[in-house]
């Protein structure tokens, strides 16, 4: 947990924060509304003895008393195991039926399939990843959940090509970026042991490239959401600050239905764009979830 000490100046109640990071997370599932209703899924979960408890801020999310993978509703593609905060960015992106949406770093597909469900499986989702093994997981999730509006591309998102498709821009794009994953410590306690500053710097360079490409590929007036599961400002506000300077976009306000702290504008001698207070930092103790970061951009050019 030593790595987390660096965030003491940012986190309000640091003792509560550390204590939350040491507790395991409950199992959470999202109901796949492409296949069934929230009410039937809840009934099936109860039949399976998993005591589904609705998560207040998001319809169709249930905390379970056991593991989500081996039960009838899962076999029918009615459920997807998905950490609570991981459901945030697709809600912030708020895609509409008929939209054309890019999921820039898509595997293993939790958000891809959530986006497809929010769009009633209409329009188009393009789901990109550069890792063949993770693409296989993404593919098995789109199949199991019965998603038919999604095309999968294997490529480096920084060089994403729209050439295979009829569309020449996206209405919305989601960059749920690969990151140092500190916020998943409750699920994977080993995460912090592998933490190095070199990795943070390396992954931040990739994040900048992917976010730039997402802004470029989105039409004027469109929306780009940037999210990570890390607390590191180097991978969050610093990435956004850089992209605000390079591409035509601006941070916009969002009202999340759960507790969070604003984005930071100062960190270890660096200062960032004042408008980044519109971003959201979700700490584990605030809602008893994993940690998360999310920002919403409007494309202006």
């Amino acid at each position, binding site marked *: 947990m030593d790595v987390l000490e660096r965030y003491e100046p940012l986190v309000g109640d640091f003792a509560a924060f550390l204590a939350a990071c040491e507790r395991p997370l409950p199992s959470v599932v999202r109901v796949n509304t492409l296949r069934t209703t929230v009410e039937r899924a809840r009934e099936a979960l109860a039949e399976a003895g998993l005591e589904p408890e609705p998560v207040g801020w998001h319809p169709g999310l249930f905390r379970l008393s056991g593991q989500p993978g081996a039960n009838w509703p899962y076999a029918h593609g009615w459920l997807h195991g998905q950490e609570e905060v991981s459901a945030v960015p697709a809600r912030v992106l708020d895609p509409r039926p008929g939209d054309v949406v890019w999921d820039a770093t898509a595997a293993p597909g939790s958000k891809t399939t959530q986006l497809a469900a929010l769009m009633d499986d209409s329009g188009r989702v393009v789901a990109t990843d550069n890792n063949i093994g993770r693409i296989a997981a993404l593919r098995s999730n789109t199949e199991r959940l019965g998603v038919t509006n999604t095309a999968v591309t*294997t490529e480096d998102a920084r060089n994403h090509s729209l050439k295979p*498709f009829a569309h020449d821009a996206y209405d919305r794009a989601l960059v749920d970026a690969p990151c140092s994953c500190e916020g998943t410590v409750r699920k994977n306690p080993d995460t912090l042991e592998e933490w190095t500053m070199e990795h943070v710097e390396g992954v931040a360079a990739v994040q900048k490239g992917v976010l730039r490409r997402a802004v470029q590929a989105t039409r004027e007036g469109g929306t780009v959401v940037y999210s990570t599961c890390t607390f590191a400002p180097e991978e969050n506000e610093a990435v956004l600050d850089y992209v605000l300077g390079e591409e035509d976009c601006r941070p916009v306000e969002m009202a999340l239905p759960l507790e969070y702290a604003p984005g930071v504008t100062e960190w270890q001698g660096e200062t960032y764009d004042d408008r980044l207070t519109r971003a959201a930092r979700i700490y584990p103790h605030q809602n008893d979830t994993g940690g998360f970061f999310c920002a919403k951009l409007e494309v202006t050019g």
Partner: protein
Amino acid sequence: MSDEGGAGGESEHGDEAAGEDRPENRPHRFDRLPATADERTVPDRPTRAAVLEWFEERFGIPPGAFEGYSLWERGAGKIWVLAEADKPEPDAVDVEALGMTLLRTRQEYWKPTMAGVQKVGGHATRNILELDDERAARFLAGEEQDLEWEGDWGYLIVAHEIAGGVEPLGVGLYTYGTLRSQVPKGRQREL
């Protein structure tokens, strides 16, 4: 480039997007199924009409169930389904995946996928085998089981009751008093 499944021809139909003019089955590209045999340029490629007819004939699934969805082939006999009601794509798309797998037409007997059956099986009116929970669990685990069935042999939609309704679960192969689960390994579960 592999030449699996195809010989050359003259038409340029449908290949503009990829900059190719030889109609053949390219295993890494998605090609839209021709509507009917008259529009077919790649030999042996199933037509959309034939696929819809097969689902209706075999399972009583009305062609209307596929309204708003296009059908594609990638690799010989692997048919995919794409929601395409409002965002039309070119007739050839070079991507890793396009929608979802639906059907295998390579062998003599066409075989729907588990994902396909879960998607459209709710419209079926025949060749549906409803199992009780105990048998359905053995089916989901990938087991073979002895079973009396008066209907057709071959690929059946296996269904069972969940949360107050009967839902399609997967594909079973019925022959000689035996039901063989076709649930893919990755989706098999021990409940």
